């Protein structure tokens, strides 16, 4: 089936259930798939994403690890060299830095440096982003660190349906992939208004998830909302915050959920910006050298003569993620509204 079809066996899932289902489907299909990480085994993960997998597939394929992210990724490289297809979990994206050398210098470079003799077909799952009062060590969005590295793919889903289809595609992919899961929307979409009651995924069309196998190709963006007034490039949690803000403003924006940052769907971006003539980029990560800077440069290089206003960026601030001032930091509806107003003021 394609990514636009809905299977007859689709059921309501939140993002965690969809991720769990993707892991289950892939472990069932491919005996080389192994799941490893801190607390992922018996307990099923601190966010429950791996719940039930150890019981079903055994400890040789789903196991807890020591608390050393360097070791987790290094071991996954070795398992990949053996012929397995590891899916390590880094408990929070904020914990990924001890593994950076194994990711950047090893996993990402292995195919190149060995001219294809050895590959690192791993998918590193990790919850990222703020909005859950996680403080500075449970809230970061480090995707820009990985998009800067040659040889690694970066994938970020925004819906349960996409989370499952993209995770399956990432696991099947023979290149190392960072799969960042926006933990603020694990249990429901988020409109950016922290002071309103949170919603769950119930009734959301993108939470109807087939129970079996399907994949969404890496490198293909999703038009989350078609429109004419301006193009908004975003991913993860911000897709929902943007959609809600745009609806509140009554603006006919085209919202592009990038889904994959590397490889990027440049064709979808180019077509949209050339159509609307306006471009806003929204991400939660810090601003300077963030992925928005890359998007801005690409749009400028390819769509300059179609642009009717300067490109705007809405991002987190260049500070650590504060605990008590989380919602002052978060690029919420006010910041997005101001940027849209500025772009469209002429």
């Amino acid at each position, binding site marked *: 089936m394609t990514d636009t079809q809905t299977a007859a066996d689709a059921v309501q899932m939140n993002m965690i259930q969809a991720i769990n289902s993707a892991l289950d489907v892939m472990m069932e299909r491919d005996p080389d798939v*192994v799941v490893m990480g801190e607390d992922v085994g018996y307990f099923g993960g601190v966010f429950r994403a791996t719940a039930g997998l150890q019981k079903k597939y055994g400890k*040789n*394929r789903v196991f807890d*690890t*020591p608390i*050393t992210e*360097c*070791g987790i*990724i*290094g*071991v*996954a*490289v*070795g*398992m*990949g*060299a*053996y*012929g*397995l297809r*590891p899916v390590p979990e880094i408990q929070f994206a904020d914990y990924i830095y*001890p593994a950076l*050398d*194994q990711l950047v*210098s*090893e996993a990402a470079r*292995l*195919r*190149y*440096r*060995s*001219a*294809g*003799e*050895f*590959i690192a077909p791993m998918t590193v799952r990790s919850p990222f982003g703020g909005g859950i009062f996680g403080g500075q060590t449970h809230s970061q969005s480090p995707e820009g660190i990985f998009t800067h590295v*040659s*040889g690694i*793919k970066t994938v970020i889903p925004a819906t349960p349906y996409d989370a499952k289809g993209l995770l399956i595609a990432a696991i099947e*992919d*023979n*290149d190392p992939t960072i799969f960042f899961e926006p933990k603020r929307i694990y249990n429901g979409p988020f409109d950016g208004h922290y002071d309103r009651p949170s919603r769950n995924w119930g009734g959301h069309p993108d939470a109807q998830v087939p129970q079996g196998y399907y994949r969404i190709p890496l*490198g293909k963006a999703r038009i989350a909302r078609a429109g004419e007034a301006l193009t908004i490039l975003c991913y993860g949690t911000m897709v929902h915050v943007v959609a809600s803000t745009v609806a509140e403003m009554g603006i006919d924006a085209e919202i592009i959920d990038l889904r994959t940052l*590397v*490889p*990027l769907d*440049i064709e979808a971006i180019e077509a949209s910006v050339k159509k609307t003539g306006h471009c806003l980029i929204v991400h939660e990560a810090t601003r300077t050298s963030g992925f928005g800077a890359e998007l801005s440069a690409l749009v400028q290089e390819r769509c300059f003569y179609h642009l009717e206003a300067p490109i705007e960026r809405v991002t987190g601030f260049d500070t650590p993620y504060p605990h008590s001032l989380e919602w002052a930091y978060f690029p919420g509806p006010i910041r997005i509204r101001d940027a849209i107003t500025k772009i469209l003021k002429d």
Partner: protein
Amino acid sequence: MTDFVSGEHQGRNLPPLTLHVPEPRFRPGDTADFSDVDVPAAGVTPRPDEQASAGAIRDLAYGLVRVLDDEGRAVGPWNPNLADDMLLRMLRSMALTRAFDERMFRAQRQGKTSFYMKCTGEEAVSIAAAHALAYDDMCFPSYRQQGLLIARDWPLIDMMNQIYSNSADRLKGRQLPIMYSVRDAGFFSISGNLTTQWPQAVGWAMASAARGDTRIAATWCGEGSTAEGDFHSACTFASVYRAPVILNIVNNQWAISSFSGFAGGENTTFAARGVGYGIASLRVDGNDALAVYAATRWAADRARSNAGPTLIEHFTYRAEGHSTSDDPGQYRSADEGSAWPLGDPIARLKAHVIGLGIWDEERHAAMDLELANLVKDAARAAEKNGILGHGMHQGFETMFEDVFEDMPWHLKEQLAMALREKKAAGV
């Protein structure tokens, strides 16, 4: 009271603290004297059962397994009692490795490549280990275990093609010379970043165990890079999962210009690092091919019987510079190598086989000549495929291949740019 702004103590009568910054005992101009290095006699170290608990054999992390005595006799419980042809095979591999190193070092000095690293004085560490392992056991080496490939009879010309980054280099000229990758010989791609291969070897061994395979993994690093976090991650994983892996520390005393004291060598042995992890740990005379063989075989048997990992410190000496890029005369005493109490690994094995009556000086000299010619012929053949810096040996497009399995649009665009530049440059 302490004034935290000025740092001055008020009203306290304590001695000032001092910082210990290690200093090697001998620097250029000094006469090296290793008479205080504790070298137990060959044969005195007991050989425990391969199933022994790590805790029961802790002393071995502080001793020194030695088989060859000063007269070249093989003595004691660690004597592997190798057949004559195996002894001569190891001798030949070691001599070939030394001849290869000589030739390639000279090739770098002649401007045929950018870089080279010898393993002179450390040949036994990799070659005896390679012979003690099964051919399909997986090796995760550092950059000084070229002896593994030579012991596994990998064609010299293939190694040289890599060193020259020429048109026959299977790695397409991408890697620094000697950073080989030989999947067919169970030799993992060398990184250049230090000790990253340790957790990878553990992961490979864990996968093998999880699959019910029979193959084990072995990895190597220098004593200096035991300070890397990866070393400790690897030891933790190896211990926790009782991974079938052999963890080798090649303690050759020097990490470029930093002596082993900068990795903690003044305070304990490197084998002792394993004790804290509950890993069986052996300290071995790394210049004694029979001791290295015996220790590796012990560790391999232990791993194969699901008794867990072994850490082996090979006590040896880096007889030459770190690489072609440094002059050891600038930072250490010139006579350290000759004063080294454990001698030269080739000379010691040679004395042993001569003592057995299966070898003699004439045959050895003839072998050295034969190997020098073998290496010379291989080098000439490799040079026909090109040398570094003399012509372009790889197509521009190869620069963009293998970054990913399939080339994404941004690399295709950059490839087009590179090809335009190539045309503009007229190359």
